[in-house]
């Protein structure tokens, strides 16, 4: 029963890591770039929702605030690529990493200046309710996290396989030049993927902030989510989710069965081991450079 409880609480955290990791992988697959600001976009999405719905701010109904925030962050992601990231086309991968780290700092500053640096919690209609299954207690907020993650996964799967835009995105991520020749507007598709990354980040942010509280440095969670993405394999969307869940589950177990301080260490130790023994993650294959 104890194990089950740990598993359940780890699963909810893991879903959030997985959702942020999804954003990393989306952008990596499409543009070979790593968006280190993904965690900060999650934080920004959460704060925008909070600003729209919390009493004391704009006080809109939760179910209006969330789609609105998602739309805003989608546009934000799109514009970010259009105005900044696109200029880096053809530059070294690590230059983009450094650029997005810096962008993350700026986002953190912006959020801190507007909303303050104190932790705040997002007001949700389902706050504080519990579900009980035998001895296992599951907060409604945690259930919502899991359900939303599953739903988003299904939607993304359908989007990438059934819609014209989704197929175009897949095509341009697999071979940009060929996609370009086939008449796919590769640049616009890339901006749209950044928009999509903004959308998933916001969903992750809303779920995160409704489970606990959010402050401007919450974006640092992105580092852990990035670790999850690498553990799962940077090239695969299911891998990202799997990596997130592995990291989420390993944390409570490490702190329960090893010692309290080790829940921080465990994910990175795992990351290091994965990198050393399976450098390209659990669900990805390796290509050697050809000469």
């Amino acid at each position, binding site marked *: 029963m104890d194990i089950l409880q740990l598993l359940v609480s780890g699963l909810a955290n893991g879903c959030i890591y997985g959702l942020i990791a999804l954003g990393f992988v989306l952008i990596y697959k499409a543009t070979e770039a790593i968006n280190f600001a993904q965690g900060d976009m999650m934080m920004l999405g959460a704060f925008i929702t909070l600003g729209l719905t919390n009493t004391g701010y704009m006080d809109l109904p939760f179910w209006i605030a969330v789609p609105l925030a998602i739309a805003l962050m989608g546009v934000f992601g799109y514009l970010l690529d259009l105005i900044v990231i696109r200029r880096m086309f053809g530059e070294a*991968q690590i230059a983009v990493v450094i650029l997005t780290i810096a962008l993350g700092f700026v986002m953190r500053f912006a959020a801190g200046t507007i909303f303050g640096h104190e932790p705040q919690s997002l007001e949700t209609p389902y706050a504080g309710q519990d579900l009980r299954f035998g001895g296992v207690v599951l907060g409604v907020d945690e259930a919502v996290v899991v359900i939303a993650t599953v739903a988003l996964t299904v939607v993304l799967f359908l989007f990438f396989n059934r819609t014209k835009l989704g197929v175009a995105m897949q095509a341009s991520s697999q071979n940009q030049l060929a996609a370009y020749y086939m008449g796919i507007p590769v640049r616009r598709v890339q901006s749209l993927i950044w928009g999509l990354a903004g959308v998933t980040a916001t969903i992750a942010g809303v779920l995160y902030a409704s489970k606990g509280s959010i402050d401007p440095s919450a974006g640092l969670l992105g580092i852990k989510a990035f670790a999850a993405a690498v553990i799962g394999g940077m090239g695969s969307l299911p891998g990202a989710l799997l990596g997130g869940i592995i990291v989420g589950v390993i944390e409570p177990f490490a702190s329960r069965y090893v010692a309290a301080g080790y829940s921080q260490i465990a994910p990175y130790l795992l990351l290091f081991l994965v990198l050393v023994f399976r450098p390209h993650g659990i669900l990805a294959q390796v290509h050697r*450079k050809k000469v």
Partner: protein
Amino acid sequence: MRVVFKTSYDHDIGMFRHRAQATWYVLLLTGVLALPLLLGSFLIGEMTNMLIWAIAGMGLMILVGQTGQASLGHAAFLAIGAYANVILQQRAGLPFLVSFPLAGLIAGAAGVLLAIPTTRLHGIYLAIATLAVSILVEDFIVIAEPLTGGVGGMFAADITIFGYAINRYINPDAFYWLTLAVTLLVVYFYRNLLRSPLGRAFAAVRDSEISAQAMGVNVPRTKALAFGLSTGITGLAGALMGHYSGVITHENFTVIISIQMLLMIVIGGLGTIHGAFFGAMVVVFLPQALSFLRDWVSGMTGGGSVAISGLETAVFAMILIAFILFEPMGIYGRWLKIRTYFELFPFYRKNMFRRQKSYLKTERMR
């Protein structure tokens, strides 16, 4: 652009391109040596801090700028250097003159140890592995309380060299000269490295591993050496940092510091010694400049001084964004352009410096 007429191979091997350049550096050296006579103790303290960051930056630069291996984990080696130095002094009773180089050696050995399993990794994967190391070391400091003092940290005693005590607050000038001596030594070693075979092997690994191999460069060994040198120098900076701040805790060496170190050398200009110094200047003097500016603005408007938290980091980040987008060669690259402009005036052409892809080549394996 000066035309240099070369008559012997020593012209290429020499430290300086021509006599005028040597003269400038001698003047600069005289200037920095005499600085304590001109500045008050606060500014000398800041200068010392800048030099320490420049040493750390040079350490990272060897790895990132010269060898092309991105590290987001160098705060870990600052920490190893700082803790090793203090622990050797307190627990083993070693004097500074022994514990300081040993701290560098230990940090260097740790770097080689890290390099052994990670030399197969490239670009972003290496960066994330080093990032993990940074986080692990930070957590280890907290967990290994008997050794490191845990969250309470450790006190670094005064430096004693042959009975002469050096403390940042009591005799800041002595601390400055000590740091300057270490800085000059590191610059000298770095410069020698650049003009010898190993430095070229580093560049070979950076630009094309496959043909470095074909030229007889043992790539994993060269990378391990670069790691060792880099982390060793960073460890020295860490040891000085410990004495500079007096108390060391895990909070001095967070992953954010690791990230900031990489950003620092990118702003300064990757691949050059100058870049490490320019970057350190930005990191140390930007907060001073901002607070000066804030006082000036509030003096003008007559309002009280308002502290905006996080402003320094944000301005730092925005400067970095501007450099990456418009001047990927960093401050040093900009400086070269300005200098050439004046040397050639009025014949400077805008496309004289072709925009080149930045130093870090990471797409070795996809």
